[in-house]
């Protein structure tokens, strides 16, 4: 059976060049970069080279790169470290209702410890109102944390404008850029970003590595205590092979960014056009234009997302859904909820996220197998062509929404 992976926003395969670059660090170059002897010295240089490669991709100085274990750790360290370091100034955080749980749940935790958090709403396209953001700033505001691009819908926030607002008000600015790095041009200087989270496995490097960019002069209380690694900013032995892999992935991303984004966008647009041409009653979730070039999130009316994913999986296609069944709770996606997407449509949301290995053939295959699957599930659905619309509880619910 064909195997088509269209879930690159969840994770990516390690790129062959990346694997080749990192393998020696599991074999001959096994030293601890903190050691003084030859084995340590060999490896310390590799970590510093990776630091330069990451810094080049986001336009900062290598000394501003802190290697951590994952994107979630980077977000936790940024938020908790800021709250503690700036407690004399205030306790108010501004974020959005559509953040990744790494930020959202950390904010909920911080609320329990006495912080006040403003969760900015979004419009039907998932976009923020910047006037509202600016109005939310108070003298107690210590941090604005807004994701660069949304993992579910791909909607891109105007980070440069938010950075300008933060600077104007003297408020620290953190961005969870996990979905943006490697897909978009990232410039922390131009956008006045103070803290930025990266996850290695989203751009063709291994799982278990992340980065927190910390602008020089940004006071942050240490999150992980122990040894002196990362200039006392993050204790713990370096994941050398993972870090080397991330460095290589960043170098490749910088070199290929323009060509790769254009190619992926073309394929994504072909998939999007094809779906809307072949299947009636489909809704696009996310901004029509301000959107990651690789992401397509759509809802197919009257059917549920998990059953669609299972059917796609049986045809070898890997995608993801915002339905409750796949979110691990009884509620569908909080992102689509914040966008006021009808609840049955939220349950039916399906995300296709493309990557560098996606081909036109893959897209055509999806366009061939998807319409009959959708139709079969619709024929099975009590909400589709419902004969007793007036007395049917399901249709009533739909109408109320």
């Amino acid at each position, binding site marked *: 059976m064909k195997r088509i992976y269209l879930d690159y926003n969840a994770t990516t395969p390690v790129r062959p060049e990346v694997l080749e670059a990192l393998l020696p660090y599991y074999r001959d170059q096994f030293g601890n970069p903190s050691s003084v002897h030859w084995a340590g010295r060999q490896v310390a240089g590799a970590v510093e080279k990776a630091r330069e490669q990451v810094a080049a991709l986001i336009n900062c100085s290598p000394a501003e790169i802190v290697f951590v274990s994952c994107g979630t750790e980077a977000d936790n360290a940024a938020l908790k470290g800021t709250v503690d370091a700036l407690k004399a100034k205030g306790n108010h955080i501004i974020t959005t209702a559509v953040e990744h749980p790494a930020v959202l749940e950390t904010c909920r935790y911080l609320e329990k410890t006495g912080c006040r958090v403003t969760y900015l709403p979004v419009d039907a396209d998932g976009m923020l109102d910047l006037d509202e953001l600016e109005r939310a700033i108070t003298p107690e505001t210590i941090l604005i944390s807004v994701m660069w691009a949304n993992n579910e819908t791909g909607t891109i926030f105007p980070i440069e404008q938010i950075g300008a607002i933060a600077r104007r008000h003297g408020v620290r600015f953190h961005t969870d850029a996990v979905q943006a790095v490697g897909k978009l041009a990232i410039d922390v200087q131009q956008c006045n970003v103070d803290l930025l989270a990266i996850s290695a496995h989203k751009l063709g490097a291994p799982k278990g590595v992340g980065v927190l960019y910390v602008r020089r002069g940004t006071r942050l209380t240490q999150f992980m205590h122990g040894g002196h690694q990362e200039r006392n900013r993050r204790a713990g032995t370096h994941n050398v092979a993972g870090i080397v892999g991330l460095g290589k992935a960043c170098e490749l991303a910088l070199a290929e960014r323009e060509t790769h984004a254009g190619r992926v966008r073309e394929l994504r647009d072909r998939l999007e056009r094809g779906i809307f041409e072949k299947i009636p009653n489909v809704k696009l979730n996310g901004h029509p234009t301000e959107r990651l070039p690789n992401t397509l999130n759509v809802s197919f009316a009257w*059917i549920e997302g998990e*059953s669609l994913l*299972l059917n796609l999986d049986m045809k070898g296609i890997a995608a993801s859904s915002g339905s*409750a*069944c796949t979110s691990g709770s009884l509620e*569908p996606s909080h992102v689509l909820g914040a966008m006021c997407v009808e*609840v049955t449509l939220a349950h039916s949301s399906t995300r296709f996220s493309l990557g560098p290995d996606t081909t036109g053939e893959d897209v055509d295959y999806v366009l061939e197998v998807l319409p009959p699957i959708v139709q079969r599930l619709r024929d099975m659905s009590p909400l589709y062509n419902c004969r007793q619309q007036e007395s*049917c*509880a*399901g249709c009533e619910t739909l109408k109320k929404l």
Partner: protein
Amino acid sequence: MYTEKVMDHFSNPRNVGEIDNPDGVGEVGNASCGDIMKIFLKVENNVITDIKFKTFGCGAAIATSSMVTEMALGKTIEEALQLSNQAVAEALDGLPAQKMHCSNLAADALHEAIKNYKATHG
């Protein structure tokens, strides 16, 4: 995540559809939790002679709907009332723990359909 039996009933669901002029119709679930099941019955001499379902929901919701129709067909009303959600899940060799409380409603839909039959044919 799902057993072979669940996947079998999910990919080849039995008794999908609606019955014209049914003797009983039952519906459970709601859109907000993501599962809606509707069961249609034909009853002759107190025996379920035809049963069909329509379901909006996840793999477990579709598989349990299919299984309950298979289990109830040919049974008397009293026997069908004895079928529980638990029995349906067991007939499918089990469901993932997180599905037991949300998507395992097929026997409830059957009981609703029987209740409706009794109310209209009492």
